């Protein structure tokens, strides 16, 4: 290997590895080592109780719905922001990042205030028989809020790079607006849509702060998995807490690897065009 002219490689890489190990890798391994200590029988016992399964089902199910909502509306928002001009567009564009910047606890109490039966939106929804606050629906609303920027921000650069010429060609050949969208534009957006969906989903699964205020937190009904981890910890049931954490971590890591694969697939596809 050629002599490295630039100094500091050993120092910076060494520090990076040390800091990463001490702060992230070793503490994270604690969860897995702890759960190994449980043995398979106890582990299974801890994660297969109806309450745990209900909480995992809610966390993953609500995240799925929220991510799908974000895919649909995220596409509309990204499209409008990239293709059209209208007043205050820059401001609105910047506001999309609000869920990243607003502390989750603040989002949680604000959403609860809005959707409570006497809240600004609850007043209208409650007479229609739609109860959002303190139900699983509230969980979906909070998860939609925190996942909102992901789809928009993954789609925007792809939409910006999309060639107008292909669309114009399709239109010149007699395709309607809808046909052009489905046959020409949508195929180019799939990788970004999938990535945005997966990112929003992953974020929603682990979300805690914005959800617990609006969820009502009834066991078996509106109790999310991260809250159950905290409940178990408060009861000194470390084994139970650790077991749920392992299930969530394994699923999240699998998702993250999937997202990485998707992104390299998307960028290679992009480069090949």
């Amino acid at each position, binding site marked *: 290997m050629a002599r490295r002219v630039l100094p500091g490689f050993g120092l910076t890489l060494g*520090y990076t590895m040390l800091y990463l190990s001490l702060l992230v890798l070793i503490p994270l391994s604690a969860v897995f080592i702890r759960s190994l200590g449980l043995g398979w029988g106890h582990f299974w016992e801890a994660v297969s109780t109806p309450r745990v399964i209900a909480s995992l089902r809610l966390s993953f199910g609500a995240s799925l719905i929220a991510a799908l909502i974000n895919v649909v509306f995220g596409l509309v928002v990204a499209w409008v922001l990239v293709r059209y001009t209208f007043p205050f567009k820059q401001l609105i564009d910047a506001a999309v990042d609000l869920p990243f910047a607003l502390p989750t606890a603040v989002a949680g109490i604000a959403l609860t205030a809005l959707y409570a039966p006497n809240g600004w939106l609850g007043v209208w929804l409650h007479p229609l028989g739609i109860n959002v606050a303190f139900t699983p629906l509230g969980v979906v609303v909070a998860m939609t809020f925190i996942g909102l920027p992901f789809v928009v921000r993954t789609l925007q650069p792809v939409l910006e790079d999309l060639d107008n010429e292909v669309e114009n060609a399709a239109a010149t050949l007699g395709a309607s607006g809808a046909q052009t969208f489905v046959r020409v534009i949508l195929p180019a957006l799939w990788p970004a849509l999938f990535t945005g969906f997966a990112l929003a989903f992953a974020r929603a699964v682990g979300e805690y702060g914005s959800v617990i205020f609006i969820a009502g937190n009834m066991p078996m009904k509106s109790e999310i998995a991260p809250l159950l981890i905290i409940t178990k910890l408060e009861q000194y049931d470390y084994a139970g807490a650790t077991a749920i954490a392992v299930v969530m971590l394994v699923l999240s890591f699998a998702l993250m690897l999937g997202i990485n694969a998707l992104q390299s697939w998307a960028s290679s596809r992009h480069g090949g065009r």
Partner: protein
Amino acid sequence: MMQTLTQTRGPRRRPQLARLLLIVLALAFLGIFLVLPLLAVFVQALAKGVGAYFAAVSDPMAWSAIKLTILVAAVAVPLNLVFGVAAAWAIGKFEFRGKSALITLIDLPFAVSPVIAGLIFVLVFGIHGWFGGCLRMHHIRIVFAVPGIVLATLFVTFPFIARELIPVMQAQGKDNEETALSLGANGWQTFWHVTLPNIRWGLLYGVLLCNARAMGEFGAVSVVSGHIRGMTNTMPLHVEILYNEYNYTAAFAVASLLALLALLTLAGKSVLEWRRPELRRAARKPRDRTRRERT
């Protein structure tokens, strides 16, 4: 249908109605999900008048929460800044095996639920944790004390600055640095006078995002804090306590300070993106740097 067919000769002519509908739909969605919650925070905070608002914000417990939040961010952000610069230097300027694996590992905390981020430090430093017995013997408290809060915050904000700096350093290559070295500068001078001015905007961008998360983190901090008022209560935790006591005005008053922080962060972020448009794209697509700029 007929109308669109007859319009096809013009370049990119879309039916005005569809355009209007999409804009209205997008704005309605953003209005309900972004603007209303933000508005609700400030309206609820001021619901009982300005006097009640300032009384809530200047309450001693609120003050101690504000001070702790600033303290935690003041420790966590610089530590992650040093790490971010080191990681970006190693990854951005050198080639080595396992680089992409390392980048994935740096992103790992993003894939971990904040609650689990808190849990891992309870498992390591808690009473029943790996070092629990040892720590208790020496009367050192980490969990349910400030060090635990700092650790949990460090974990959840770990990737922010590194993520911003790695693509910036990768894009800049090492030509400038090598020139400086060949002109007789030492390594430290090169970093200080050549590299740092080049990465300063990316650095500021990362610090901004890292700080917002550090001050606003709730889940991870909630697990390790123990919620001792005036001692281990950060601002988001104080909001929760006030809210659970049905003291809504005070809860929203403290929350409004955090919302202001979020708005300032967004404003700063927009200014930086306006000055340096590449920041935003670099942040999203680290592997895709050489694409043509949008026309």
